[in-house]
């Protein structure tokens, strides 16, 4: 399983229970497709609390955080 949290304007894309099934070779980009999130809306990706890009391969049990641009002051 992968734990997925979508933040700010992406929150509605969070999967049910905050989890999705893992399969070998899955990348962050694949997860965006599975969750129907347009790539251009995701500006920041963290995997297990570390900054990563869309091509990062995921491992079973990874925690994924997806963020849009945030700049209110």
């Amino acid at each position, binding site marked *: 399983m992968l734990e997925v949290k979508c933040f*700010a304007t992406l929150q509605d894309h969070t999967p049910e229970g905050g989890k999705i099934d893992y399969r070998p070779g899955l990348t962050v980009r694949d997860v965006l497709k599975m969750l129907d999130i347009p790539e251009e809306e995701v500006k920041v990706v963290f995997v297990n609390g570390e900054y990563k890009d869309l091509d990062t391969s995921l491992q079973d049990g990874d925690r994924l955080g997806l963020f849009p641009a945030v700049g*209110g002051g």
Partner: protein
Amino acid sequence: MEVKSILPNKSVRQKILKELKSQHLPNLWIKNSQAISPKEQACLFSSKVLVVGCGGLGGFVLEMLARIGVGTLIFADGDRFEESNLNRQLYASTSNLGQNKAKVAQARLKQIAPLCRGIAIPRYLSLQNVVRILPKCDLVLDCVGGIEFKAELIHVCQKHQQTLITGAVAGWEGFVSSITATSKSPLSFFSGVSTKSAENTLGTPVTSVNLIATLQVQEAILWLTQKKLLCLDKVLYVSLDRFDFMWLKL
């Protein structure tokens, strides 16, 4: 560029520094005692901080930096208060709608922090202006609303080796991060088209704005009292609706 400054004069400032050096805290800082030593209070009083933006984050940041005892605050904003600012901006009130935010902030600082030298710049800072001011400052606090200028401000501060503490808010979420000349920066959060940034959809409620401003100021206190920055190469991301505080490594 119009610049107006408040008190105090040089001899008052020297007298205060002398008192602090002899381990004596002036009465107006007595309740900082133990949390802040006289030596640290002297560091704060000798510091010059540039605050870019005097609206949501900027209002709270200025209030706290002045009350904690920062000696010189330079702050800029070309915007004027309007009704939609009343939900979150500390210095917005029904009696000052239409007035320049930096000028209102300056009047407020004069009332609450008589030892603070407040220098108001009632204009939007251009990058050229920022470059001119940077050598006069020990630290920059990014309280700008809008991703485009935030990214430019980070670039210019890194290029001129100036430490900057950035903060940003969207809805019940927000983050703080510190950036030095050689550190990583959260620039990706400020990428894309300004109108698509999350705060345009989710708004900027007062609790998120206040909390992120508080975290920025606490980080500033660490830097100005010569301690290690906690948000360097990291983002502290907060989801207030879940009481979730997350450290993210850049």
